[in-house]
């Protein structure tokens, strides 16, 4: 909400007040100053000048050469194409080097004649959307020649932009902000002038007003105004409207807008010639009724919309927007001026339904002040009388809900306030502050005070707790001390999921994986590429972009994007993970740990560079199995589209999928510019937790020395190391403690398609020191069975 400083000074004296200090104070009261703008700073070196002589341009029919006195020894020569230029008038002159908003003015040659600047229009000064011709200044005399134009145009003003919270509808006006400043400064506010001479004729004799639904319209006043001259809007008003972001349209609309900005209440003026029988009915719309708004938009109404109508037709969508059929136009000379109060909930519903948010609906849906209706009507009439030479009928024609009471009485118990805030309240000081804001003291004793809330706070101060907030707002939150609460011991259970999360993090990080945080979105395109079931996903109805349309069910896509970014930035080794979620429409959310690795490990003095592959991922798979202490699990093929055909598996135990891994489909990773392998895995957290135990069990270990025995077998390459390992474990007897594969060797002399696999067997007993004899039989059995089973040869 923008207002100008000069406008504010009509309502409260700001003499000697520092604007920055005031902003701070208002901020602490909940009225945040977002920005202070000085519009005059955008206009530089523009002076009042007098056109002394005009000559025709020798080379152009439409151009004129003006000699302009701006108080310098030499007159300026300025070339203009404006048709309204004439001699002996005062004009704003931008000289060589001047600034007009975004434009720099320079001395130029126009069709062979030098122009030492420019004569300006309101448009060029930023005070009008479209100007015709230059601006001719009025009420200026010779002694003003050469002065800067800022004061004349009201450009020496400052614009203050406030952030108004949605509960403070009373602050959506210069008046309301002045009232807040009165809290900050202790100075009184003054109301604007509203007295004027009305005609002998009365509005209520000329007009009829009838509210059909008192729950949606609490008060409706109409005033008849005639003999309107559609004069130019006074420059000062035009400037103020422009500076706060409103557009000047015509004197009648400008005045209703001006009063709305100043007092708060949105007003509306109907061309009374277009209103049937001078009759105003406030009624529900007919279902299916079509209505064309002021801006030419066609909307289809229903019976929950409240309309302003005459005896035949709807003429406004109440509190939201007027109708095209009764709009003020160049022939208008009589108007019906509406000042009314509507139900906020209904206005909000209607505005939302028809997607019509206007300055009017914005205010009404936040709740307007019942008692301001008359003031606003009077103020607008005063201005119409003064600036549009209008004859205003006496009084208003009014209908109202007589049960509506714009004042509520609220009890404030001091002990309650002190208990909630935590300090002793200076009661008399607080009461005085309330009184200065037009609260009435209805009753008071040592324990409490009953206050009648002024009508401008009717909509948001209704309860004791609201008065408690007002109390601390008025005297300042700095009065509240700092204390520490006594918190009672309650939930002390260990959160198993959090514990597991910690362990997963520790584990992955110890393998060099970095945690990332991504947006859990997926696009329709990605869904299609990965053949995911769109119907099972949560879709965002109002996504910011198409990329963020669905909630993800394939978090690796997000990790791929992170990997892509890192690769582009030459971060070569990419090992990342995310503790995230998968979101399904029906099943809801489940926790997922997504893991991705790709890229290469660079060369060092200890090892050569190499690309990362499956064996960099494998310890993660093994580690999880160990962490969950899983036995009796199996690997099942996963055929989902994201994976490359032959490399993806689920880890399954008791029909629960605990983990899924694979090489991401090269056709897919190519889209992210990956030529190298990209490996991914998911740990399904909920399923893992079925097997995860925080408690662990001690396993007794032997205190006797071990015997090491190495065996190398030459076998056909088709035979996997795992198969041999399993067989050795089976045959090596109870003393076998550990079995490791320590060497793989291939060489021509071993034979075609053969390789040697070397195992290190560790034997140990819990009861005694083992001797060779204790294991010889087992070694023989191992060798024999590996030979027989796999056609292996022992490598000596």
């Amino acid at each position: 909400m923008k207002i100008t400083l000069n406008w504010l000074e009509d309502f409260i004296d700001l003499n000697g007040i520092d604007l920055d200090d005031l902003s701070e104070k208002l901020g602490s009261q909940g009225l945040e100053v977002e920005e202070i703008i000085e519009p005059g700073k955008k206009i530089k070196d523009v002076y009042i000048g007098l056109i002394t002589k005009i000559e025709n341009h020798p080379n152009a029919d439409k151009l004129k050469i003006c000699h302009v006195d701006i108080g310098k020894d030499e007159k300026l020569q300025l070339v203009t194409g404006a048709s309204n230029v004439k001699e002996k008038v005062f004009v704003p002159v931008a000289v060589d080097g001047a600034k007009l908003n975004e434009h720099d003015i320079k001395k130029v040659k126009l069709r062979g004649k030098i122009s030492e600047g420019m004569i300006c229009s309101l448009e060029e000064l930023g005070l009008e959307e479209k100007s015709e011709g230059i601006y001719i200044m009025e009420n200026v005399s010779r002694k003003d020649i050469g002065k800067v134009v800022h004061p004349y145009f009201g450009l020496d003003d400052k614009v203050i932009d406030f952030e108004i919270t949605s509960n403070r509808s009373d602050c959506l006006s210069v008046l309301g902000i002045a009232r807040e400043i009165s809290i900050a400064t202790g100075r009184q506010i003054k109301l604007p002038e509203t007295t004027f001479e009305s005609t002998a004729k009365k509005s209520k004799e000329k007009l009829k007003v009838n509210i059909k639904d008192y729950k949606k319209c609490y008060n409706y006043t109409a005033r008849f105004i005639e003999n309107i001259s559609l004069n130019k809007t006074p420059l000062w008003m035009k400037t103020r409207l422009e500076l706060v972001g409103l557009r000047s349209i015509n004197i009648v609309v400008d005045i209703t807008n001006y009063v709305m900005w100043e007092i708060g209440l949105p007003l509306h003026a109907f061309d009374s010639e277009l209103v049937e029988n001078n009759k105003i009915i406030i009624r529900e719309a007919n279902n299916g009724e079509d209505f064309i708004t002021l801006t030419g938009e066609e909307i289809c109404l229903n019976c929950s919309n409240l309309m302003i109508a005459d005896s035949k037709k709807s003429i406004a969508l109440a509190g939201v927007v007027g109708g095209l059929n009764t709009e003020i136009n160049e022939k208008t000379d009589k108007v019906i001026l509406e000042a009314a109060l509507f139900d906020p909930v209904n206005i909000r519903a209607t505005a939302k339904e028809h997607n019509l948010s206007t300055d009017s609906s914005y205010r009404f849906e936040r709740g307007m002040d019942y008692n301001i209706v008359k003031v606003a009507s009077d103020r607008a009439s005063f201005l119409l009388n003064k600036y549009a030479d209008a004859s205003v009928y006496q009084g208003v024609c009014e209908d109202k809900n007589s049960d509506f009471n714009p004042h509520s009485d609220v009890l404030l118990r001091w002990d309650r306030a002190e208990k909630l805030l935590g300090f002793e309240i200076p009661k008399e000081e607080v009461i005085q502050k309330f009184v200065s804001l037009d609260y009435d003291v209805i009753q008071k004793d040592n324990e409490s005070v009953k206050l009648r809330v002024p009508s401008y706070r009717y909509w948001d101060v209704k309860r004791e707790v609201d008065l408690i907030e007002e109390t601390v707002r008025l005297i300042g939150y700095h009065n509240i001390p700092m204390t520490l609460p006594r918190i009672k011991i309650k939930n002390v259970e260990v959160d198993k999921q959090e514990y597991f999360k910690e362990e997963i993090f520790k584990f992955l990080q110890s393998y060099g994986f970095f945690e990332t945080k991504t947006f859990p979105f997926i696009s329709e395109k990605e869904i299609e590429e990965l053949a995911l079931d769109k119907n099972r996903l949560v879709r965002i109805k109002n996504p910011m972009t198409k990329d963020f349309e669905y909630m993800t069910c394939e978090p690796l896509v997000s990790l791929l994007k992170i990997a892509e970014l890192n690769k582009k930035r030459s971060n070569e080794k990419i090992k990342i993970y995310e503790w995230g979620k998968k979101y399904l429409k029906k099943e809801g959310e489940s926790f997922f740990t997504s893991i991705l690795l790709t890229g290469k490990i660079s060369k060092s003095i200890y090892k050569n560079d190499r690309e990362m592959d499956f064996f960099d991922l494998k310890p993660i798979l093994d580690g999880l199995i160990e962490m969950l202490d899983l036995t009796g699990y199996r690997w099942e093929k996963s055929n989902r589209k994201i994976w490359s055909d032959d490399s993806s598996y689920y880890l399954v135990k008791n029909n629960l999928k605990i983990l899924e891994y694979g090489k991401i489909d090269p056709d897919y990773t190519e889209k992210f510019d990956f030529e190298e392998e990209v490996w991914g895995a998911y740990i399904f957290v909920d399923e893992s937790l079925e097997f995860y135990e925080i408690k662990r069990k001690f396993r007794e270990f032997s205190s006797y020395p071990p015997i090491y025995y190495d065996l190398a077998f030459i076998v056909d390459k088709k035979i996997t190391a795992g198969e041999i390992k399993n067989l050795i474990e089976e045959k090596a007897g109870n003393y076998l403690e550990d079995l490791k594969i320590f060497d793989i060797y291939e060489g021509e002399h071993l034979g075609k398609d053969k390789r040697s696999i070397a195992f290190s067997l560790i034997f140990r007993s819990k009861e005694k020191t083992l001797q060779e004899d204790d294991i010889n039989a087992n070694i023989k059995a191992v060798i024999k069975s590996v030979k027989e089973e796999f056609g292996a040869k022992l490598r000596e």
Partner: protein
Amino acid sequence: MTIDELKEKLDKLKKEFENDLKDVKDEKTWNELRVKYLGKKSKIKSFFRFIGKFSSEERKTVGQLINSTKEYFEEKIEKMKNDVEEEKKRIDFDITLPGRKRDIGKDHPVTSVMKISKEIFLKMGFDVKRGPEVEKEWNNFDALNIPESHPARDEQDTFYLNKKKSVLRTHTSPVQIRTMLDEKPPIAMIAPGKVYRTDTIDASHLPVFHQIEGLLVDKDVKFSDLKGVLYKYLSVFFNDKSIKLRFYNNYFPFTEPSAEMHMSCVLCDGNGCPACSYSGWIELLGCGMVDPNVFKAVDIDPEKYTGFAFGVGVERLAMLKYGIPDIRFFQENDLRMLKKL
């Protein structure tokens, strides 16, 4: 030969030795020196043969003279041996070469902030709660005193979903509601988590970010307790007891009285810098006393219980704590940042 002549000869030998000593570079040259001056054919050995040529009175002095020179050589050569070995070690063992390093991963800075925050609040006695991100409108809005009919409903920049009466939660506050429906007071909880707003991405906005919600409900919870808890939390979090807090009135439908809490800027100690727009203050979080309407929605008697609540942005805290200038870095996940933080 007189004793003086012998002395002269020994001194000459010493000088010669000292000269040769300077040339010792390694084991080989050291060994050559040792053989030359202490070996069987060394000059010092030949001096011993002269002893017999002196008178019996002089012999003792002569012996001492020759011995002390020999001992001098022995001592120097022994010391030189150490030096030579040290040098050999240094050459064979270049400790400036890189070690057998491996990467250790790290928490994302958002997680780090959440962990520290959790630790502080757990020590104060708060429990940690979780809630879903696809949340019922009732939990996200209505129960928090933000009815459909109130304009405050529009200010949350909400993502709406194809799932009936559900939204992506716009704040972590619905976890308050879930907890209060589940448990009776006293309740002390925090809820860290992801939240969503339709904010256009810029240096200080992301559509997906993180918040930490705090709630304390009991008999006699006061605004002063809120101030005390926030000060404890933030002074420990930023490891700075000199931080100042100020509370400005604001409007949040779910608290009354409400306040926006500002903290003295930790990057410039309140002197003014770009992070605080040269004001010396950072608008850090919204807070207040739980609105009676919220208590009514979850069936807690507002006459019997009071409570405070607050919600703070995690990325914002991380930016201040680690001096990160742009919120987009959190979403980029550049490994160079993740490694350094």
